[in-house]
């Protein structure tokens, strides 16, 4: 049967296979608002911590946990709806995102301590806001970059 297949048809089929693999890799799991919602949550939590009021702190922490759980629902749902196969490098993407979060924490802490040393009021809240904006701006770029890398790698494997 394979002898009867037109080489152009075979090439088209291979192209289609590549296209579908790329579609899975590039499938949008994080909606655009997710990054900004976390940025707002981070800033609000920092403001609550900085207020120094115990009641506000516990209420704020509880709200943070509930809100982040709710924000993550569509992401978890989208990820579960078509989870990429292990071989596609999902673990690498998660490692990249974890490194990004650790880097952000470093930036946030450095900014917070720097502002505090300079005597700026509400250093924690300002540092969290800066970190949040970085998270919301760089996060989607990182996800796109990871997808591009995975697509390039999967093409070079053929």
């Amino acid at each position, binding site marked *: 049967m*394979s002898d009867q*297949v037109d080489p152009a048809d075979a090439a088209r089929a291979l*192209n289609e*296979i590549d296209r579908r693999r790329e579609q*899975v890799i590039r499938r949008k799991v994080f909606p655009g608002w997710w990054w900004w919602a976390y940025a707002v949550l981070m800033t609000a939590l920092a403001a609550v911590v900085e207020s120094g009021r115990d009641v506000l702190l516990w209420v704020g922490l509880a709200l943070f946990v509930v809100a982040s759980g709710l924000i993550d629902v569509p992401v978890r749902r989208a990820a579960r709806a078509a989870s990429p196969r292990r071989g596609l490098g999902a673990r690498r993407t998660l490692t990249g995102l974890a490194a990004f979060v650790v880097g952000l924490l470093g930036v946030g802490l450095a900014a917070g301590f720097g502002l505090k040393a300079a005597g700026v009021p509400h250093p924690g809240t300002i540092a969290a806001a800066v970190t949040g904006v970085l998270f919301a701006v760089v996060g989607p770029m990182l996800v796109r970059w990871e997808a591009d890398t995975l697509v390039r790698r999967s093409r070079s494997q053929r």
Partner: protein
Amino acid sequence: MTTPRFDELIHAPSRLSLVAFLAATAWADFAVLRDSVGLSDSTLSKALTTLEDAGYVEIRKAFVGKRPRTSARLTTSGRTAFDQHVLALQEIVARAGGSVVPPSRSSEQS
């Protein structure tokens, strides 16, 4: 080692798209498959049933709350058949040498 084997069942256009999508996923929901591959509910159902009958696809039906959720994945034999089919396609293209140029992505999407 995987040996090339052209698979007529997989090669049909809608099934090829479906199997290629499934090959890149662990599990995929019915709705995602339908929207991503661009098939109607009935065409997708029929294609999945054909692939399931051939032992290439495993279908899982569950309930999330009150909503039914159907998911599918390639079985081991489905994955093997797909890998063999890809090798067969690559062999056909290789035999034809450089004379085969697959259509560009941009022209396909337009």
